[in-house]
């Protein structure tokens, strides 16, 4: 299919294909220019146009066609002859200057950017036409110069600005220096050089509307960038989409497998671990299903979308995607409802207290049982002999993501009586007070008192089958005044109401324990007390010296003032009220 144009040539209406029209127009322009200086140019051109019309009509009749194509035009031009072949030089007349100039100009090549055979802006192809080379070699050379310090890019941009693009047919012909127009025209080397010089002159002429050229350059550059992004960029997007598809499918498989695992296909013991221990046994199936849908559907949607991007193919239809949306919303609703239901089970608070009076000792050692707690089943599974104390698995005390918050907290307080007392407070939440109390009773906690050594287990456990409802264990140790406490290093982090690390620093020893004593003002670090005592002694010594100096009453009033100032400071530090 080709667009046709209706032309009126020599008073004849002719349908002509666009490409043929271009050709014919170019030819007639040549003819007009050729005869422009001729006295009877109008008549001659009219004659020629009439004749062309006649020839075209004849051809159409002969070939039983309705539309003139390029072949017709070419044969007519061949018959009429190219302008170079018109030899009308009149005897005795000067040769028409314009025809000569035109002929020369026409036969000569011009430097244009070839827009038909371009990679970026057609610069390389244009140069290739000009020097009669294969464009690919020019391109290879250009790319090589890019590697040689990148100067090629600059030169390319410059040529992009300077070289006009070949727009019209004539310009394209000039660019290629159509061999047909070189008939009978042989340039020697001198002429060739002359032409090059002229070309350089023309480059200067081109430089004049440099701003206009810059505008063209910029708009073309962005046009090229756009083409690059929509071409190469598309590929990158597709690769990314492909990756998403692969990883998304893997993720979906993982989800299915883990859903199956939670469903108890392999191991139901996972519900003993936090945060799964929050969920009530009866609701597990529902919550699992809801959570599965909430996670699964968006990933599935992402994968489907990526498939569409990567393969340009609609993976599912609208109805199905709408159904997916509904399913997802349902999943969100179910999960939300269950979450609300579970959180309602934290409404009530209950405490359970158990008090034990301990045997009196002048000093207690507080230690933490580092061995990890194992249930009987686990001990069997891990091949640990629970009765063999030489074989213990050490708890690192560090909380991973799936460890229930089950650390104990120890408060050490002054006893009002002379009895050492340990209070264990079990706390829990629940939907009702009763269920909260029940949950608190599900806490199992152990400590041992062996002579004067108190060994606490760092974590409490929940009895099997019970659910996590923010259970806590708080221990309160009431110690009579004057009793010493030796805190082992492991216990530091569990002591809630004293900052034990300061004492460790004060001791300066590399002991794995610190010694404390209960005073009327609460528990004190023995090392810190010693330090304070030394400091107090020093201050008292200084004070007595200063007071001696003050008594001597030196004549120097400045010195007198500084001494009394210092006395005030020292007294302040010692806690002595100024008179």
């Amino acid at each position, binding site marked *: 299919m080709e667009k046709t144009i209706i032309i009126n040539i*020599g*008073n*004849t209406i002719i349908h002509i294909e666009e490409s043929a029209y271009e050709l014919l127009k170019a030819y007639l322009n040549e*003819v007009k220019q050729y*005869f422009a200086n*001729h*006295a*009877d140019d109008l*008549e*001659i051109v009219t*004659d*020629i146009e*009439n*004749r062309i*019309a*006649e020839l075209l*009509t*004849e051809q159409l*009749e002969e070939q039983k066609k309705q539309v003139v194509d390029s072949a017709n035009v070419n044969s007519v031009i061949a*018959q*009429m*002859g*190219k*302008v170079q*072949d*018109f*030899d*009308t*030089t*009149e*005897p005795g007349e000067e040769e028409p200057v314009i025809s000569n100039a035109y002929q020369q100009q026409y036969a000569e090549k011009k430097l244009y950017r070839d827009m038909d055979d371009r990679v970026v802006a057609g610069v390389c192809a244009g140069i290739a036409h000009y020097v009669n080379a294969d464009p690919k070699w020019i391109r290879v050379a250009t790319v090589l110069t890019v590697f040689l310090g990148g100067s090629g890019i600059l030169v390319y941009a410059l040529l992009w600005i300077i070289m006009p693009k070949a727009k019209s047919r004539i310009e394209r012909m000039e660019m290629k220096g159509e061999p047909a127009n070189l008939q009978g025209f042989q340039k020697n080397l001198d002429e060739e050089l002359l032409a090059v010089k002229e070309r350089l002159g023309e480059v200067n002429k081109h430089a004049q509307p440099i701003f206009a050229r810059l505008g063209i350059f910029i708009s073309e550059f962005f046009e090229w960038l756009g083409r690059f992004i929509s071409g190469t960029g598309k590929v990158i997007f597709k690769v990314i989409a492909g990756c998403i598809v692969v990883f998304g499918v893997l993720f979906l498989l993982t989800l299915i497998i883990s859903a199956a695992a939670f469903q108890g296909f392999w191991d139901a013991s996972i519900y003993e671990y936090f945060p799964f221990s929050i969920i009530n046994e009866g609701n597990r199936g529902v919550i699992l299903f809801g959570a599965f849908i909430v996670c699964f559907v968006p990933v599935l949607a992402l994968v489907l979308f990526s498939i569409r991007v990567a393969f340009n193919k609609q993976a599912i239809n609208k109805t199905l995607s709408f159904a997916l949306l509904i399913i997802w919303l349902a999943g969100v609703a179910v999960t939300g409802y269950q979450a609300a239901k579970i959180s309602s089970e934290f409404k009530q608070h209950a405490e359970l207290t158990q008090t034990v009076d301990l045997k009196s000792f002048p000093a207690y050692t507080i230690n933490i049982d580092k061995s990890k707690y194992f249930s009987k089943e686990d001990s069997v599974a891990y091949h640990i002999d629970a009765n063999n104390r030489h074989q213990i698995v050490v708890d690192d005390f560090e909380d991973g993501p799936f460890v229930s918050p089950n650390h104990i907290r120890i408060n050490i307080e002054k006893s009002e009586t002379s009895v050492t007392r340990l209070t264990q407070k079990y706390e829990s939440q629940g939907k009702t007070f009763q269920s909260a109390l029940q949950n608190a009773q599900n806490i199992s906690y152990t400590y041992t008192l062996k002579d004067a050594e108190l060994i606490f287990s760092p974590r409490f456990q929940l009895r099997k089958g019970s659910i996590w409802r923010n259970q806590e264990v708080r221990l309160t140790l009431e110690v009579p005044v004057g009793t010493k406490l030796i805190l082992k290093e492991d216990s530091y982090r569990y002591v809630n109401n004293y900052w034990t690390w300061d004492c460790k620093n004060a001791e300066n020893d590399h002991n794995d324990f610190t010694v404390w004593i209960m005073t009327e003002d609460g528990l004190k670090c023995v090392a810190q007390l010693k330090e304070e005592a030394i400091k107090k002694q020093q201050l008292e010594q200084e004070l007595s010296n200063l007071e001696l100096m003050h008594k001597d009453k030196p004549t120097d009033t400045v010195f007198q003032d500084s001494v009394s100032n210092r006395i005030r400071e020292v007294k302040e530090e010692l806690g002595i009220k100024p008179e």
Partner: protein
Amino acid sequence: MIAENTQTQMRKGILEYCVLSIISRGEIYASDIIAELRAAKLLVVEGTLYPLLTRLKNNGLLSYNWVESTSGPPRKYYTLTEDGRGILSQLDQTWQELAYAVGISQKGANS
């Protein structure tokens, strides 16, 4: 170059003479003139003829009539004017002289 130039000059002069001779035989259409010239191997392309005809016409050697064509618009048919006939007879004479001159030049006066 010199040979080429001379050839061109010779062709040009003879072309005009031949065109006048062809037209002198009767009213004729431009493309028919071309056909005859082509048969005589004097001319290759039609484009050359139109400027020539126009010039001869403007010099009063030719005149033309518009003749209706069976297909398409009317055509120009050329005829010789009286002046044209006069010039042609002069040219005929000149041609005789030239032919003689060439013959003599080539073969020598005595042969």
